[in-house]
């Protein structure tokens, strides 16, 4: 693996039954990047994110994420990446603080790390004690991102992270992602918010028909 690369794929193939969802993907992601995956619905963006997270098996080609070969050791990748899809993965009967504490206890993070994660997401003490079921979409998204922080995820894989957010929520999310990268994380996101995401991204790659074209 080339030093500085977080993700390296070469002719990686993912199939659903007989259907090739990814038909020979070759691309790299460098540490500290915000990489935008751009493409039409069904192009393979979500599959690519799930493959990077070690969820969807790669059947041919080579794929290395955070130093782990996804074809032979994909379970080792999982605890180092955070995948945020269309759901937030939150418990609506618990408060923000309880949700974040749940993840912190799973990974053995300290109370200080919880407070730091909440602060990074702009969640103050009053908001932290509100039940997730009573939050706006943007506040929920911030809570789920706080979970990624407290989990110490090194690679953030975000599928349509702007979906359901108002303008202010989108601005806040962009600021959080820039801050995450400044703190050492790497972000790969798939989004239909082309203009906004292009401003946010440090590099854009086009996904089409299960193949990746680097436009940098």
């Amino acid at each position, binding site marked *: 693996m080339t030093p500085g690369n977080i993700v390296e794929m070469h002719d990686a193939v993912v199939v659903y039954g007989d259907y090739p969802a990814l038909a020979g993907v070759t691309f790299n992601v460098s540490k500290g990047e915000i990489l935008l995956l751009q493409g039409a619905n069904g192009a393979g963006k979500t599959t690519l994110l799930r493959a990077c997270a070690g969820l*969807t098996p790669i059947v041919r080609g080579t794929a290395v994420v955070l130093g782990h070969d996804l074809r032979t050791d994909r379970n080792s990748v*999982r605890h180092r990446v955070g995948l945020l899809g269309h759901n*937030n*993965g939150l418990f609506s009967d618990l408060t923000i603080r309880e949700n974040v504490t749940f993840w912190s206890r799973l*990974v053995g993070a300290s109370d200080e790390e919880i407070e730091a994660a909440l602060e990074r997401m702009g969640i103050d003490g009053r908001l932290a004690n509100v*039940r997730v079921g009573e939050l706006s979409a943007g506040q929920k998204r911030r809570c789920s991102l706080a979970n990624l922080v407290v989990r110490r995820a090194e690679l953030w894989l975000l599928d349509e992270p702007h979906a359901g957010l108002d303008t202010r929520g989108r601005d806040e999310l962009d600021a959080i992602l820039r801050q995450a990268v400044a703190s050492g994380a790497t972000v790969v996101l798939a989004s239909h918010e082309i203009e906004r995401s292009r401003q946010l991204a440090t590099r854009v790659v086009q996904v089409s028909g299960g193949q990746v074209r680097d436009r940098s």
Partner: protein
Amino acid sequence: MKSHSTLRVARVVAAKDLRIEMRSRVVTNQVVPFAALVMVMFAFALDDDTMLERVGGGLVWLATLFSLFIIIQRSFVIETTDGALDALRVAGVDAAGIFLGKAAALVVQLLILETTLVGGAIVLYRVQVQPTSIVLLVTCMLLATLGLAFVGTLFGGLAAGMRGRETLLPLLLLPAIAPVLIGATKATEAAFGISGMVTSEGWPWVGLLAVFAAVFGVGGLSAFGPLIEE
């Protein structure tokens, strides 16, 4: 996740499930009243004190099984509504720990339910627990609960990602838990001294419950991970 020990994950997941239950009070405000209503309906349907006393043990466990479906559905709805189970899976959290944690939370909820139902049977059906049979009854309840929690968590996890899980779960569960219904009913009847049964007649059935709990406990620990995987 390598840094997750199974027991730590189990403790965190169980605490989370019980906290959610304490906040939502679904078991105490909905499931327990439902089970109590089932007991009352049995009394109306059979309408015979002698008959009720004779079948009281079985009715307690039937009401428990009906309520079990609701509790298990609820246990996994909180995981699937916003993709929390997926998030745990994505994060590589130890599946055996999730299994144990969810089963432990179910055990607590089921024991509250069963204690209420046994109390209901004593009041409604006038069954009597012999002082010498209390150990048998408590052991029976503990082992039956353990078995139900293990098998319920296993099948709940299996059905969680499926369409039509609300109807599928009872179909999958009922045949699997038949041994618990039979064993627990027989042991409870022995504890109640029904039809001249004595305490010692209940212990072999408790043995069956122990074997059932052990089989599904071990099976669940190894199978839960692959079941919740894609």
